[in-house]
């Protein structure tokens, strides 16, 4: 199918309103297969304005006698208004945008056509494979090995080709354990905490079912996890569902690990919100933030009603629990919910951020996102198909990744010096997860990415972000490496609404960007006087 079939009108005269702070733009509106452009005409001073159609979340059209108004609500929560001359033209453009922004095919999406200057294809795709993390683990302990049992994605379609597993368990046992876990997600290493000699392991739920089935290889695998840790280590299974929900899952073939079958492991239930309720909480929050008509006197009540901060609190405290289990109790932790692709990853990635100073560096955090979200099979395409404005009934959408970013932002707020990256990186990840010219967040798993040849035919977001010109926006000028664990306060009183994201397009020109720039200035000035290293360097974690 050609894009041109979907484009009814290519060109129209239009005025663009970009919210209260930016002046309106006038010019010629052009529609291409992937973009909406506004060219302000030859005499104008402003530059070409460009919008990736993929980032449009919903469209609203209104017509007057000889013009039409299109309201575009974007996935990054921006709201744009286009006033277009000609009723016919405006309706055509609206319909075209509608069709083009909701194309489902991956391989015709913009990343497959995006060829920015200065970047080479395949540059950063070998930046973060599991092999790389394994090298680090191997230096710390001998108890784990890299297995290629999933080489052809047949054992677990949502895992990468290589996973880290206990050395004493062979590939055959892994394959049998995989058959006992939903979606084949058998327990694999997520993080090795060297100071305590314990590990963080993740999986999906065991398929115990109503008959309370068992699987010897799965039990052996978890036994091997404990055996490989520090002597005498116990294990905790953090189930991200309520015990009620876990019990109910048995009726549909899922379930939990039976106590008797897994000696040394104890189960804890920490229910986290997921799926549709989480998406609804996100939608309500964005609605409340954008509702400028309502009396602001009841703002706090409304904010509370959205429950978003309560979800942040639950996610952070569950991550603290897992991290504490390892650091303080010297225990191994297995995290899973049902599928093991959402709240499970939320908990394991946050726990690492709390414990592991390397994951708080620019490169380390990118690696964490790559390893614990993208390669670990968080279904980005399904979860981020729509953002908070879509009128369509959500099917698989859920802002789990956004919740993760929010939690990271809260950590950064409470420990302003301990993260090497700043709010800028988190905002960029949010934007790119929902709509991006880069291929990094495409598809739902490594298997799909292989089928679509994402690695060879698109650019990686990481090489885009690691260009020197981006650094000032993304890095935290105050960063000072902190070798300690960072334990956040998870009380509601210590959590804040992430204004930089949720009020980003609503607030008046805030001085926060100005302040950020000034702090950079101060820091770089100081460093200049000290004649130290330039701040922009593509640092990589020390391995």
């Amino acid at each position, binding site marked *: 199918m050609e894009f041109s079939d979907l484009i009814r009108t290519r060109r129209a005269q239009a005025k663009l309103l970009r919210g209260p702070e930016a002046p309106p733009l006038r010019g010629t509106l052009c529609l291409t297969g992937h973009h909406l452009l506004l060219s302000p005409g030859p005499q104008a001073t402003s530059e070409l304005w460009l919008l990736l159609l993929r980032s449009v979340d919903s469209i609203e059209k209104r017509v007057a006698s000889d013009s039409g108004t299109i309201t575009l609500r974007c996935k990054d929560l921006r709201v744009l208004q286009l006033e277009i001359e000609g009723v016919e033209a405006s309706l055509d453009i609206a319909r075209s945008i509608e069709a083009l922004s909701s194309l489902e095919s991956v391989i015709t999406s913009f990343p497959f056509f995006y060829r920015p200057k200065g970047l080479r294809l395949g540059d950063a795709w070998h930046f973060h494979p599991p092999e790389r993390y394994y090298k680090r683990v191997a230096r710390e302990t001998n108890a784990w090995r890299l297995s290629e049992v999933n080489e052809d994605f047949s054992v677990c379609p949502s895992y990468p080709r290589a996973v880290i597993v206990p050395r004493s368990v062979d590939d055959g046992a892994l394959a049998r354990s995989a058959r006992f876990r939903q979606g084949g997600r058998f327990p694999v290493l997520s993080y090795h905490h060297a100071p305590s000699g314990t590990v963080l392991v993740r999986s999906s739920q065991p398929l115990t079912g109503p008959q309370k089935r068992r699987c010897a290889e799965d039990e052996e695998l978890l036994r091997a996890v404990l055996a490989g840790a520090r002597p005498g280590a116990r294990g905790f299974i953090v189930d991200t569902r309520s015990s009620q929900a876990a019990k109910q899952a048995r009726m549909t073939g899922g379930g939990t690990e039976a106590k008797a079958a897994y000696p040394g492991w104890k189960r804890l239930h920490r229910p986290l919100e997921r799926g549709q309720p989480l998406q609804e909480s996100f939608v309500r929050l964005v609605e409340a933030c954008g509702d400028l008509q309502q009396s602001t*006197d009841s703002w*706090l009540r409304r904010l509370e009603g959205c429950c978003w901060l309560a979800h942040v609190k639950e996610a952070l405290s569950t991550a603290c629990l897992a991290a504490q289990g390892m650091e303080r109790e010297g225990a191994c932790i297995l995290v899973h919910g049902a599928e093991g692709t959402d709240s499970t990853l939320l908990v394991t990635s946050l726990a690492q951020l709390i414990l592991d100073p390397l994951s708080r560096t620019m490169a380390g955090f990118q690696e964490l996102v790559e390893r614990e979200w993208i390669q670990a099979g968080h279904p980005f395409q399904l979860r981020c198909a729509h953002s908070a404005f879509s009128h369509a009934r959500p099917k698989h959408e859920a802002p789990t990744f956004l919740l993760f970013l929010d939690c990271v932002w809260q950590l950064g707020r409470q420990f302003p010096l301990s993260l090497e990256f700043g709010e800028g990186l988190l905002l960029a990840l949010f934007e790119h997860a929902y709509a991006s010219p880069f291929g990094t967040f495409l598809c739902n798993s490594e298997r799909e990415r292989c089928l679509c040849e994402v690695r060879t035919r698109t650019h990686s977001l990481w090489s885009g972000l690691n260009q020197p010109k981006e650094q000032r926006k993304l890095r935290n000028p105050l960063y000072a490496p902190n070798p300690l664990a960072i334990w956040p306060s998870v009380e509601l009183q210590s959590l804040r609404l992430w204004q930089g994201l949720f009020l980003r397009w*609503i607030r008046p020109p805030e001085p926060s960007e100005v302040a950020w720039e000034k702090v950079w200035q101060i820091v770089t000035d100081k460093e200049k006087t000290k004649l130290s290293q330039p701040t922009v360097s593509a640092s990589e974690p020390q391995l």
Partner: protein
Amino acid sequence: MQKSEEVNLVNPVFTGTPEFPEWLLHQLLNIIHTPWRMSLLRGLLGMELIETSVRLFLDFQEKLASLDSALILDVPLGVISRIEKMGGATSRGENSYGLDITCKDMRNLRFALKQEGHSRRDMFDILTRYAFPLAHSLPIFAFLNEEKFNVDGWTVYNPVEEYRRQGLPNHHWRITFINKCYELCDTYPALLVVPYRASDDDLRRVATFRSRNRIPVLSWIHPENKTVIVRCSQPLVGMSGKRNKDDEKYLDVIRETNRQISKLTIYDARPNVNAVANKATGGGYESDDAYHNAELFFLDIHNIHVMRESLKKVKDIVYPNVEESHWLSSLESTHWLEHIKLVLTGAIQVADKVSSGKSSVLVHCSDGWDRTAQLTSLAMLMLDSFYRSIEGFEILVQKEWISFGHKFASRIGHGDKNHADADRSPIFLQFIDCVWQMSKQFPTAFEFNERFLITILDHLYSCRFGTFLYNCESARERQKVTERTVSLWSLINSNKDKFKNPFYTKEINRVLYPVASMRHLELWVNYYIRWNPRIKQQQPNPVEQRYVELLALRDEYIQRLEELQLAGSAKLAEPSTSPASPSPMMPHVHTHF
């Protein structure tokens, strides 16, 4: 994780002073440190007259003190608002008998005592005497304090110098000494700035028409457009709608000091209805027909009683236990942030009128010493970057609050035992809260940090310094406060680095307009909930955090060095048993392992 273990003090060490009897030495008490439903602790309750202040303290063994700094209680007696006995001789059950101490800084402390002996009565008497010296004809602690600093804070504010900095006197404004002996207005400072064209007789006549003789005088003049902020009290209009030609003329003279403006803008800080109601008691506001060349706006800020009740509600939800389940809606129902919003909005309007509207502004409320002080000082902070430096802010407080007669003694109740006094109100605290909100929104605009603001608030109550004592300048002069007490600014200015914001970038002429929308205001957790250890250590000041981090690094290096030395020495001694890197940020999640 919170330890809730019981700690036994073996041989408590106590260094008593002759002032305080031996009962302290032998009294071993059960103390419930209620704040955060923490624990039952055995400790020694004592009081000491240390160099800096009389304070109530709990003497724990060092071992215990290092456990969690939140367990150390350090309460200057000036902070105490109320002391009550709880339980009686017949009370049964643990911790039902003792003392309950309400503090002005959002704390309540309960001490469970043993019923044997008469220790409680002694303790109650002594505490009462020293916490409320006024009722016992004892001097306030500031007069006993003999601290020495290498800077004298009393020299920070010199009105003549400050007005000269503003470019005064000039062709339109003069400095008058008419109030030198406080005979024109006993709650105003000795030195005032008034229009050049108004004679001293004019001023005297205007004074008869303004509540408590607080006539309109200049607070601040815009360096470029020469518009001014003028402050005063309400006009004495009364039920009959009295008029005063001199007052009307005087306001017109103020307007005419700047030729460009056709109307003088009057901001009445009160809600419209309150202003009307004030007529019944002889007050009122400037009516349109009497003041042709003025425009009046009401700013809807409520009175001291409303503010007091609002803060009381805040205390209810943060102490002793933080409201957990409906935190945000409980916070909303205190209306505290709404009041902050209204005060800030009012100040923004004043600043905007002067700066962009190029109109002179007159601000008053009823008496012109509470809301008026909030509005003028906040507007000045927005307009004039000088006041955003440490010394500039001290001058601002000294000028708009202390010298212009904000009734600190009545609002705070220094040394006074009448805790229910209707004159008490957290007006100054509210002002500092607004300043904090601004510093959050403009992180590089202020030379001072959060600690500076908290320190000011702590000493608002502590009575260690003379700075906030008494209601007005005349009373302070009578008591020779500057000679007999130390200024808070001495403490701060002799150790300025501690109070500096590392990101301060000086900008002249930048007007700051904070966003006063509820979406952008937040509860000042580090102040109001600072006694809660769950929140306390989680948000260390960046500077302090870096310090902690550096210390941790240093420890690590020392440890590594020791290990290397050990490894290097031929005789291998016992390996050092130093613990792995200690994490100073304690987690405060409940674990149920």
